[in-house]
């Protein structure tokens, strides 16, 4: 099976800082991958590289075998949707108007939305359970609502791969579980998911694979059981060892303790 997305000897550095040197990994079409690692290790950077909004310093990212830099951003955005961590919208756009922006890569220079465009928007809002929010102002939504609406915009792009940047951050435990449910539902709809995650307790049972980034080390890949071992976590996250069973059997009470 050819991978949906492939990073090959990917290197990226900002002016003064090298983030990756030679990263090799691929995302299969049915992937659900949690991207973990300490702050500043390049999780968001990797997602941006995957979405084509950052250009790699060397190596490349291939979508269905084609290098991203040979594709137009419109073409990329029809296959890959990036849901950023923070979105600041100027003016009081409604949720409906916000989600409609997901059709940007499909619209021609002149003319408005077609029936197919409207259907895609409607479907995205149904999947994320945001239909009841449609006439609310985006900037006035709560954190959990906002996250679902952002994902709805991504789904309106009708992507094969959804990139989620810290989807559970700043959400209360109820909203986190709601979001995890949504991720499971999207998997059933055949959308591949690559999500950076801070909440390690939420990974097990939802994501089939974990990618662990650690500064100065090659990318580690494996199943959640293999990767979320206390000894490995305490080394990568540079913190005292955590008690083992907590990570593998998450419960509401313990979730506070294991936040890394």
């Amino acid at each position: 099976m050819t991978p949906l997305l492939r990073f090959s000897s990917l290197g990226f550095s900002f002016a003064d800082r090298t983030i990756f040197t030679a990263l090799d990994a691929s995302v299969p079409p049915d992937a659900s991958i949690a991207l973990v690692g300490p702050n500043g290790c390049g999780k968001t950077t990797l997602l941006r590289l995957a979405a084509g909004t950052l250009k790699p310093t060397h190596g490349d990212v291939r979508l269905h075998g084609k290098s991203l830099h040979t594709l137009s951003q419109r073409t990329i955005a029809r296959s890959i949707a990036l849901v950023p961590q923070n979105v600041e919208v100027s003016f009081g756009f409604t949720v409906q108007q916000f989600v409609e922006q997901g059709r940007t890569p499909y619209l021609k220079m002149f003319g408005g939305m077609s029936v197919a465009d409207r259907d895609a928007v409607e479907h995205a809002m149904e999947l994320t359970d945001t239909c009841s929010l449609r006439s609310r102002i985006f900037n006035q939504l709560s954190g959990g609502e906002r996250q679902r609406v952002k994902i709805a915009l991504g789904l309106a792009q009708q992507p094969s791969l959804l990139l989620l940047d810290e989807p559970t951050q700043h959400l209360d435990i109820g909203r986190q579980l709601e979001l995890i449910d949504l991720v499971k539902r999207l998997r059933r709809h055949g959308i591949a998911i690559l999500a950076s995650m801070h909440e390690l307790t939420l990974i097990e049972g939802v994501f089939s694979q974990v990618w662990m980034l650690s500064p100065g080390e090659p990318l580690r890949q494996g199943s959640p059981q293999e990767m979320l071992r206390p000894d490995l976590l305490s080394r990568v996250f540079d913190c005292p060892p955590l008690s083992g069973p907590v990570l593998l059997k998450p419960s509401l009470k313990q979730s506070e303790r294991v936040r890394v």
Partner: protein
Amino acid sequence: MTGKIERIRSESAAPSHPARYRLLLGSLALALLLGILLAACVGVVPIPMHDLARSLLGGQALNADQHLILFTIRLPRIFAAAMAGAALSVSGLLFQGLFRNPLADPYVIGSSGGALLGASFGVFILPQLSMAGFGATALLGVLGAICSITLVYMLASVNGRTPVVALLLAGFAVSTMLSYCSYFLEVMDHDFGAGMRVLSSWLHGTINQPTWPQLAVLAAMVLVGIAASFPLTRRLNTLALGEEYAAHLGLHVQQTRIAVIVIGSLLTAAAVALGGLISFVGLIVPHMMRMILGPDHVRLLPATALAGGIFLLFADTVARTIIAPSELPVGVLTAFIGGPFFLYLLRQAKREVFA
């Protein structure tokens, strides 16, 4: 009964309803037409409505003086005011979308000042280039507006966003500097000729008395500018998500920015040639339309153009009749209305300003 009223209310409250939207555009267009007719009647020499109507339909209802006043003074002035209002409002809408900031008015952010300086160069330094009154000055005005807005944008934007404080400070500094450069040109002009009178009226914001050929050139600029804004409106909606997000969705951010600056400058320059420095129109009109229609630029554009025409036509008619036979520069009037309105908007943005 109550239920029906409730339903009608909630429908009328929904600005996205297409029939309501068409009704609003129709009413605005009708109001502009009526405004033009009414404004043609009032003045130092009043013209009765039925005589005006008959004369416009080709009849002989007016005496020679009335005919002269109507066709060489009043109508050109009316069209000039309506066009300047539409141009300022649309360029305000475009710049607010570009800066992602509802306080961006062509006057406040210095593009009017740039257009004025460019046009002043045309009047004083290169008068021999002027064709049809102000062919070259209009062109130089566009260049001046493009340069000043690019300068303000570069000074004020931080990572693609323009904080209110940075925008206001950069706009204030650039527009003040440019206005005094124009003033300097005026002082250095030795012959105290026609150029000086033109510039003085520009600085105060008085609608000019253009000739029909001049009006035709400027009407072309305004119409081209508004027509060219239509394909930009949807892009401005996408840009409201922030540059990086918009770029991810496939928007050509840099192209969009350049197009908005060029078209906004064309409109500003046309407005300056028609009426000089008229403040706050580009701020008030888009804001009012946003309150009725919401932030969708696609819907806002035609409504803003029509409402801008009505607003400045009304203001100019008041300005030329309120202390007749003398007249007030319309810029004074819009500053009286727009100044407090601007402060009100600033107060709304206070949290961001003083954070």
